[in-house]
């Protein structure tokens, strides 16, 4: 297995969360849909492939090929699931973010850089 990771990038976190949400149905196509639907951002498909590969090499996700499907031109899907190490990192990232948010309140509009109490 590849090298281990201590931190997650923004996009890596999004991809991991999408995989967690999709459960057994996680592969590149719905991952992109999921991120798009929930964040309103349209991620680059190439970035999703490269990120999944990187996360797999880092031991955060594992993948396995499904059955060949006719609507895929006879090619199989690569299903991804999050490994315990990946879950731990997601939890840690969430805790870190929470701590950063504690006590912060951002004004809804027109507050500029200020508006923090």
């Amino acid at each position, binding site marked *: 297995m590849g090298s281990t990771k201590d931190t997650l990038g923004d996009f890596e976190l999004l991809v991991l969360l999408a995989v967690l949400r999709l459960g057994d149905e996680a592969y590149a196509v719905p991952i992109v849909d999921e991120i798009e639907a929930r964040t309103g951002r349209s991620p680059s498909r190439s*970035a999703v492939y490269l990120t999944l590969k990187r996360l797999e090499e880092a031991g955060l996700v594992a993948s396995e090929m499904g059955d060949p499907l006719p609507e895929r031109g006879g090619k*199989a899907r690569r299903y991804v699931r999050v490994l315990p190490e990946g879950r731990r990192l997601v939890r840690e990232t969430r805790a870190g973010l929470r701590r950063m948010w504690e006590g912060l309140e951002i004004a809804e509009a027109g507050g500029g850089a200020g508006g923090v109490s």
Partner: protein
Amino acid sequence: MSAPRLPRVLVWALRRAAGPMADEVEGDLHELMHRWSSGGSAVTAWLRGVGTALRMIPRLSVGRAVEALRHGGPSGWSLDGKLAVRLIWRHPGLSVISVVALAATMALATSLFTLTTAVLYSDLPVEDGDRIVIVDLRDETTRRTLYPTWGEYRAWTEGATTMEHVGAFRVSRLNLGRDDIPVQAVPGAWVTPSLFRFNPTVPLAGTLFTEAMVAETPNVVLLGEDVWTAQFGGDPDVVGQYVEVNGAEHRIVGVLPESWRFPADESLWVPFVRPAGATEEDHFPGAHLIGRIGPGESLDRATAEAAARIGRATPLPDRIPAVTVRPFARGFSDPAEVPLFWTAVGALVLLVLVAAANVANLVLARTEARRSELAVRSALGASRSRIVGQLFIEAFALTGLAAVLAVTLSTWGLEWMASVVQGLPYYIDLSPDPFVWAFAIGLAGLAAVFAGVVPALRTTRQGMADGVRGTRAIGFGRVSQAVIVAEIALSVALLGSAFALGQSFMGYTRGSVVELDDEGIVTATLYTPWEGDIAEQEDISDFDARLRASVRRQLERELGVPVGFTLDLPGTEAQSSRIEIAGENTLHSVRGVSVDDGFFDVVEVEASPGRVFERADFLEGASPALLVNEPFVDDVLGGRNAVGRTLRFHYGDGTQSGWAEVVGVVPDLGMNPGDPKAGAAVYRRLSGSNHLSIMARADGVDPFALVPAMREAAFDFDARVQLRDARLLRDAARDQRALLTGFGSALFVMGGMALLLSAAGLYAVISFGIASRTREIGVRVALGADALRIVRTVAFRVSRNLGIGLALGLGLGWAFLQGVGVLEFTIRVNPVIHLGVPAALMAFAGLVSVWRPLKRALAIQPAEALRAE
């Protein structure tokens, strides 16, 4: 409903970009298109699919490359790179020879390329520098530069419609001095004030001069920053002070920054004004017309206008100027020479290819030796293009290294050259720019194709499977034999010529064969800017005679040291002349040396037999006398007596001097072109010249202590006379020959390296050729063949190639040396040494390369050889 299909080529590209994820990516895209087509039209789905694929291909390729780099794991080209570096490391000898030889030839080509682009395509380092132009005036038939008449100057400066600004300049050294500042000849220029409008600069202090200022007081001067710092100690109050320029008082109006040294490399500027009384037909020698092209105008239109205007104003019927308006910074080369420059660059690129071909031989041999390794890679799935690519990268690792070394060497060489050749314009930048790097890298690529791809294609052409099985006998076919023959021929011819030229140039440092006591002799050039000034007022030879007499009188009176004048210094090359001996009909080529009667006192040389020049020889009405040197007696007269014979000089224009009697024979003073055997010289009495060398012997004191007195004596006679380049006689001789010595040494070193490379290449090709037949030879011996006969057969084949190559090389080299002899330099060709040494070395390399592998082949046990079959 079936999904629309992507074009095959797109699928192929997508799969390549996706690498190991190819199936997954292709499947996902297929699925998406299926989904899109079921929710809408097939065409839209197809278009979306194509768009998605096109976006993904570059992102996936770049993304994977970045990931690979991040991991440091070798894949694809980076693996080839690593293999290449490892190979260089594993064959250090081969690598060093290849890199050094390639670097030397590439450095030559790169230097010439740098010079060519700098001379032909420089621009002034100001805004719109390419719009600043110079009017190139040349004689239509001889192509010699013409200087404008005042009438032509007026025609150009008054009312040219294609020009925004017009002006003129003239470059010359100017004597700058003051009571508290010793007189010094400073590079300067007369310039029209308009110059500062089209090539603007901001003075460090004071102002620039303007037409109005000049009309009122023409005696104003601008100082360059270097002169201001060195001569005036950076005095902040220098503006407004008075200095003497060529003896006339001038007011300093400003100081210009170091970055502005227009037109060439000047440090002092005075106004360019038409002298009172100059007629329209008078020339101002050295003057050039310049200007700045108006907006929207072209060089062609400016040329047409200038030709028309100047043509109308040209006064003399026998003066037919060819007029071209050219960008200023490119204006000093003759456009007719442009193809010449590029031909020379092309020739050096060919030289690089010759070196690359040598490296190719070495690589070929190595590639053959690695056949099994390549076959294994092929068996593991590497395509032919992949393997050729790998070998290209290996070769490129070598040639790229050579290119970096070449640019470094070339930069050093050009820096050194710029320091030896003075007066290079300030805007000519010889440091390597992106074009130079691109050229060098292009050369590296070309050399890598030659040295890597060609051998690789040859090696991979035959079945790789043979390599795995190890059954194929490696041989060198006709092409290889032709390469060997051409190789030997070119090496002998080119290297022989390089050695001859190198030796000839090197000879320049050893010009003097007499041990002159030149330690204490100081020399300098006395330069009189006679053009336009003195020449029109008085006869230069009269001016010159009075100058010499005055300077000599003053120095001998004040310092009590012997002083002499000459046009040619001992140890430097004197002018080549032709003389006729009375009573003989043949002309002899000798060195013609012009000296005064003090010359021999300074060098402390006496005549035997006869006498040297005396003061009486220079008096009016004295009968003309000549001296000859000892080589003249030996070479021209064949040892016969010289004194009392009469000789006369034949000039280039078909005229002759009067007959004059030889009054003495002096030793050789080394005024030959680098070959003591070409040292026959005739000394004649010095008459007028505006470019004299003064020599003085300082006995017991520092020779340089004489220089201020020399300068003062000249200045006292006429304030325009400049004293330049004061140095020891010994250094003068060395300086004159430094450049050629440098070239000579470079030719020697490069010739030597090329020879080494050629010999190594030859060795590699022949010895690998034989080594590959080891088994065959072993089998033959096992079957009872006579070992001696085998040796004879192989030796015959090799020596036939060697012989043809050597014969061709000797012929080519001989022809080339005859051609070189046409050059100005006297090259004494010694075919035994110049062609014989490279030929012998190549022959030796050829024989050694046969002997060692053959010995190995014959030592094989017959049984072993048979078993291998």
